[in-house]
């Protein structure tokens, strides 16, 4: 543990690839105040919420079904999640209900800490999709609890574009037949720590967690996902793509847990890392913990540089090497974003990834 902030050290198994040394400074920094937010809206035409330094800005928001105020983030004793507090936003959708368009939330930090707690409760057959943008400089710390009723469906896309540090902690439980998909793009200039814990409590539920982590300079992205199958017949997918350049590090620890009763589970993990420089690091830990015997669990992990055969093929078709590399890298990253359902959101995320790759 690490002084006033009580942060875990790399001796903790779940934090072995993390570097939280910048957090105490960010936690103590004073926010600068306002920041331009105009270009951060994707424009989905649905409800929108703006938080600056963790504080809600009603004048620039249209919350729709989302209520702002106390929220139970359910982070338990998660060392970062528990610091997010109990104030933020809450979305509760009754049976068969859902906002017509994607809910958009923009978080901007202006130099200091931005703590937000969030809670999503969806009843039977309710549907929603959500896109979140984290921008500015500072420490975004969001903890969120998600409870999905029978056959409820929720898709979350989030992008981390700013500098500083973003720690996003999600804890979700899914009833029978529910579906949850969380896709994350880290394409900013700061570090991140993503904790995602999905529990498929009911039979036949579907859980997906994945994303693209792009890092250069001395950046560090660290994703930690646990997909727990507690009931039979569940399906889960984890698809992560990491790109590390310069002295950057990308780490993905993804685990599938299959409980004793979770027969007929179908779980897949695909962890791929692309190294663009010899000083960069990619870490991967595709973990399986299986207590049921009639299950299909497969995982694959690869780390390396771009496929030489693919480069050769493109060269043989007359594509210049620089362009060929860019093309293959884009395709590599796009894999992880292809699952985003809302077209406008997917296009915006791909544009962000392109901008990062082209920079």
């Amino acid at each position: 543990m690490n002084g006033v902030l009580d942060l875990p050290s790399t001796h903790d198994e779940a934090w072995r690839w993390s570097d939280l040394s910048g957090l105490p400074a960010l936690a103590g920094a004073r926010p600068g105040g306002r920041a331009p937010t105009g270009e951060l809206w994707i424009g989905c035409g649905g409800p929108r919420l703006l938080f600056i330094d963790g504080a809600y800005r009603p004048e620039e928001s249209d919350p729709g079904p989302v209520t702002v105020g106390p929220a139970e983030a359910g982070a338990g004793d998660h060392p970062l999640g528990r610091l997010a507090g109990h104030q933020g936003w809450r979305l509760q959708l009754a049976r068969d209900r859902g906002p017509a368009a994607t809910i958009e939330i923009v978080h901007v930090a202006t130099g200091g800490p931005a703590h937000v707690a969030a809670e999503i409760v969806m009843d039977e057959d309710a549907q929603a999709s959500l896109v979140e943008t984290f921008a500015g400089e500072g420490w975004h710390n969001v903890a969120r609890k998600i409870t999905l009723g029978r056959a409820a469906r929720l898709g979350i896309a989030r992008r981390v574009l700013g500098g500083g540090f973003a720690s996003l902690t999600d804890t979700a439980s899914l009833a029978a037949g529910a579906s949850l998909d969380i896709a994350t793009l880290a394409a900013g200039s700061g570090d991140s720590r993503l904790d995602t814990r999905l529990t498929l409590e009911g039979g036949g539920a579907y859980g997906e967690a994945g994303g693209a982590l792009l890092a250069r300079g001395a950046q560090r992205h660290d994703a930690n996902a646990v997909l727990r199958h507690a009931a039979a017949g569940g399906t889960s997918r984890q698809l992560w793509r990491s790109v590390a350049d310069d002295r950057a590090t990308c780490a993905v620890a993804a685990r599938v847990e299959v409980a004793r009763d979770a027969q007929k589970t179908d779980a897949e993990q695909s962890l791929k890392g692309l190294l663009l420089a010899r000083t960069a690091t990619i870490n991967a830990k595709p973990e399986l913990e299986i207590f049921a015997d009639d299950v299909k669990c497969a995982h694959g992990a690869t780390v390396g540089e771009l496929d030489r055969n693919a480069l050769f093929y493109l060269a043989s078709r007359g594509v210049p090497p620089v362009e060929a590399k860019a093309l293959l890298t884009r395709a590599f990253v796009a894999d992880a974003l292809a699952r985003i359902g809302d077209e406008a959101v997917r296009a915006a995320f791909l544009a962000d990834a392109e901008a990062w790759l082209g920079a």
Partner: protein
Amino acid sequence: MSDGTTLSKDDAPELRDQAARDAADKAATYEWGFVSDLEQEFAPKGLNEDIVRFISAKKNEPAWMLEWRLKAFRMWQGMTAPDWAKLNVPPIDYQDAYYYAAPKQKPSLSSLDELDPEIRRTYEKLGIPIEEQKVLAGVEGARKVAVDAVFDSVSVATTFREELKKAGVIFLSISEAIREYPELVRKWLGKVVPIHDNYFATLNSAVFSDGTFVYVPEGVRCPMELSTYFRINAANTGQFERTLIVCDKGAYVSYLEGCTAPQRDENQLHAAVVELVALDDAEIKYSTVQNWYPGDAEGRGGIYNFVTKRALCQGRNSKVSWTQVETGSAVTWKYPSCVLAGENSVGEFYSVAVTNNHQQADTGTKMIHLGKGSRSTIVSKGISAGKSNNTYRGLVRVGPTAEGVRNFTQCDSLLLGDQCGAHTVPYIEVRNPSAQIEHEATTSKISDDQLFYAMSRGLDQEAAVALIVNGFAREVLQQLPMEFAVEAQKLLGISLEGSVG
């Protein structure tokens, strides 16, 4: 499970019950669980500096060795046992064990005839070709195996010494080697597994009682397989053997290791350290068939197998290949590893780990790539049955200066029954873009179709399961030297008896 004879639904319940009970008995029987009635010499129970001095004095060790041991012991006192493995080990009372037990015989024998007949009978029961004649009596041109046998704490017999000497190969118990080749031992001991490496390795460094030393000189291809059989016989003893194998430039050696222990209700500790060194163009093939007593069907007794095995591929083009068949021990904590420091060095790890009843295994490997063009292959097959837990834990690390590294990892798990667990915990850490790292894993069970097919061809259920399991583990079993392959296949079948049906 049926014993091969078919029982129809009309059979009397008692008959079916009896068959089940027989099968359960059979499964609970550990064929090597006998105790030999030997006169033993023990050091007093417990662990302190005096015991360390006692062991060192018993072995007539030079002063540097005693210093080395004491340094390790003092270090160990300040250390804590690792707890990151997926293992549930009750606290171990290190004071409630004997750290030195030797058959009451002078440990150094001038000829095999002087060996205590009771020990010899024990080895005969184990089926070890301890007498040279037995091996020689085989078909002309049959492969010879030189055997070093370690009984509780002390090496009791090393065969074929003369013939090996002619080839320049040194094959001795490590206590003899410390006395006869102190410079050679001192140069390499603790070089691969330093004394502060981990809790169990440090404990071993302080109290190791015997083990094997092998040195294969430059350019020599060891003329026969070398083999050590470890046996824990006395109650309440820990076995701490230490193996050091150094393969000089261009040399080759194949080394086999087997282990058994009597059936007892209390747990016994086995904390070994194995160090391998391969210089330029050298190759070491290290095969283990681990069959320590696994405890009974209720999880009583059994060996705690906490072993540190590591190879240093120091030279260019050097190669180390670990092959292990792990069927025994109540708890296994073992990660045979390769530090691939040499250019174009090669590390291989082939493993079959079987757990049944209440056994727990957390085993795997580490491949540390430091040399340019180094390559590694990992093939791990985990089989869990009964109420056991079987974990593959592996690390592949590529250093920033290691260009052109390749690794391929495959770990497959097979679950027999719905009360067991199969886990995979691979770590991949890559710091060089030219590396190509691939990892694949699958988890499956024996399908009813497979069983039905094999049984429709006339196999009973047990034979069908054994056949399918052997097929599952084939890629690993075929890496074993012939002598071991047959034994290993039989062991797989025996370990899984009573687990299906």
